C-alpha cells in the first residue's frame, strides 16, 4: 500500500515544484514589466518630458485602443494599413523564398551553377539590402510591386544560403543508400536531400518572414499609398508619438505571431528532429 501511494505522491510533488517554477518565472517577467513601466512614468514626470518626445504609457494604450476598437474597414484604424503591409510582405515572402530555394537547390546540385553564382551571392549577402530599396522604388514605382520586390529580395538571401547549406549537409550514408538503389538525381533530391535540409530551410523561412515585414515597411517609408509604414510617417508628421508607439506594438505583436506560427508549422513538418534530439 505504502509503495503504491508513494508513486502518485511523488509525481504530484514534482508537478507542484514545476508549477512553482512556472509561477516564479511569470512573477519575474511581470515584475520586470512593471518596473519598466514605472521607470518610463518616472522618466516622463521627473524630467518633465513633453508628450511629443515621450508619451505616458496610458496615452500609448489610448492610441492603441483608438486604432483597434474600430470597424475593420475604418480608414483611421490599424486594420487596413496592417492588411496592406501583411499582404505585400506575404507575397514578397512567397516569391523570395521560392526563388531562394530554387537557386539554392540548383547551386547545391550542380557544381557549375555554384561556381558561377557563389561569388555574387556572397557579395550581395554582405550588402545591407535595405540600401537598394530606393533603387527598387525607382524601377517599380510607389505601388505594391516595389514593396513586394523589396520583401522578396530580403527573404531571398537567407533562403538561398540556408537551403544550399542544408542540402549540402546531407549525410553521405543517406546519399550512398540512394546510390545502392540506383535512385535518380530527382528522387535523391526529393526523398533524401530536401527532408535532410528541412531544418535549415525552416530556419531560413523563419528569418525570411521577419525580413519580408521589415522590407515592406522600409519600402513604405520611401513612399506608398497605404500600409503601416505610411501610418507611422503620417503620425510622425503630426508628432503623435503615442500613435507611433501603438503602431510599433502592433508590428511587434505581428512579428512574434509570425515567428510562433512558423515554429508551429516547423514542428509539424519536421517532426523527427526534436524527437531524435531527446
Amino acid at each position: 500500500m505504502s509503495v503504491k501511494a508513494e508513486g502518485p505522491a511523488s509525481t504530484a510533488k514534482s508537478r507542484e515544484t514545476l508549477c512553482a517554477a512556472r509561477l516564479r518565472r511569470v512573477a519575474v517577467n511581470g515584475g520586470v514589466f512593471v518596473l519598466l513601466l514605472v521607470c518610463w512614468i518616472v522618466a516622463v514626470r521627473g524630467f518633465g518630458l513633453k508628450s511629443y518626445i515621450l508619451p505616458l504609457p496610458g496615452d500609448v494604450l489610448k492610441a492603441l485602443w483608438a486604432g483597434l476598437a474600430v470597424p475593420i474597414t475604418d480608414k483611421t484604424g490599424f486594420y487596413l494599413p496592417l492588411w496592406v503591409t501583411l499582404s505585400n510582405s506575404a507575397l514578397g515572402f512567397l516569391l523570395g523564398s521560392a526563388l531562394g530555394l530554387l537557386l539554392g537547390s540548383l547551386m547545391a546540385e550542380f557544381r557549375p551553377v555554384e561556381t558561377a553564382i557563389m561569388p555574387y551571392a556572397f557579395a550581395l549577402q554582405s550588402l545591407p539590402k535595405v540600401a537598394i530599396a530606393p533603387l527598387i522604388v525607382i524601377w517599380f514605382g510607389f505601388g505594391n510591386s516595389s514593396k513586394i520586390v523589396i520583401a522578396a529580395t530580403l527573404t531571398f538571401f537567407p533562403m538561398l544560403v540556408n537551403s544550399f547549406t542544408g542540402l549540402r549537409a546531407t549525410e553521405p550514408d543517406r546519399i550512398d543508400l540512394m546510390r545502392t538503389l540506383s535512385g535518380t538525381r530527382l528522387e535523391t533530391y526529393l526523398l533524401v536531400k530536401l527532408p535532410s535540409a528541412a531544418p535549415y530551410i525552416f530556419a531560413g523561412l523563419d528569418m525570411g518572414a521577419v525580413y519580408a515585414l521589415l522590407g515592406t515597411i522600409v519600402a513604405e517609408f520611401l513612399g506608398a499609398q497605404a500600409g503601416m509604414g505610411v501610418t507611422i510617417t503620417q503620425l510622425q508628421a503630426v508628432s503623435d508619438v503615442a500613435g507611433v508607439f501603438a503602431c510599433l506594438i502592433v508590428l511587434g505583436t505581428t512579428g512574434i505571431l509570425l515567428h510562433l506560427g512558423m515554429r508551429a508549422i516547423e514542428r509539424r513538418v519536421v517532426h523527427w528532429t526534436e524527437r531524435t534530439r531527446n
Partner: protein
Amino acid sequence: MRTDGSAAAHAPNGPAQPLIVAQGVSRVYATVSGETVHALDRVDLRIADGEFVCLVGPSGCGKSTFLRLVAGLDPCDGGRLTLGGRPVLGPSSEVGVVFQTANLLPWFTVLANVSLPLRVGAGRGRAVDNGRIHELLTIAGIAEFANKYPYELSGGMQQRAAIVRALARDPKVLLMDEPFGALDALTRERLNVELLRIWQASRKTILLITHSIAESVFLADRVLVMSARPGRILREIPIHLPRPRTLDETPAHPDYVRLMTEIRGLLYGEAL
C-alpha cells in the same frame, strides 16, 4: 534445409558457380595532403552462391573499401571484380547493402523505409508488393512497428528494419558493413541468431564485415582474414561448425574456441 556447413555449395572450389569473384582487385586513393594510399592490394576471393562469408581484419585495413567496390559505390583501380559473371560497373539490384548505422530515413515510417527500394530507381514502376514486405517484416520480428517512425524504435529494431530494406528487392547478395557494431552485446547476439534464420529462409549470399572474431565464427561458412593496410586476404578459414547454430550449443562446440584462437593468432600476428 541446411543442416551442416559442409554442403557442396559452401566449399570455395565446389561445383557451384562462384557468384562474386575478385581477381587482383586494388584500390588507391589520395589523401587531403596529396599522399596516395593503397587501401587494397591485389585482393583475390571467390564467394559461392548461397555462401555466408565474413571478412575480419584490423581497423582501417580496407574491409569497408572492398565492400563499397562490390556494392558498385566506388570503382576498382586494378584487377577484375565480377558479380554473377558480369563486371561490377555500378550499383545493382542484385545487391542489398546494410550500413554500419541503420541509416533509416527519419521522415518516413518503418514501412515507407523498408519499401523505399521498390519505389525508386530500378524498383520504380513495379507494383509495391505489400504482402512480401509484410512477410519480411514478420520474419524480422518488426511487423508491429510498421507504422512507427525510426526514432520510436530501439537500435536493434532499427537494424532489423535496415536488413528488411536490403532484402526488399529480393537481391542475390547481401553486403553488410559491421551491421551490429553499434549495438550492445546481448542485442548483437540475438540479431546474429536472427540473421542466420533470415539467411536460411531466404538463401541469400552474404558478405559480412565485422570486428568481432566470435561473431565471424558464429555466423560464417568461411572467414576471410585481412591484413593491415594495404589490405590483402591473409588466409581463409572454413568454419565447419554444425548448423543450425545456436547461442547454447555453438560456443560449446570443441572447434569453436580453436577457430577463434586461430583467427586471433592471425590478427595479432598481423598487428605486431
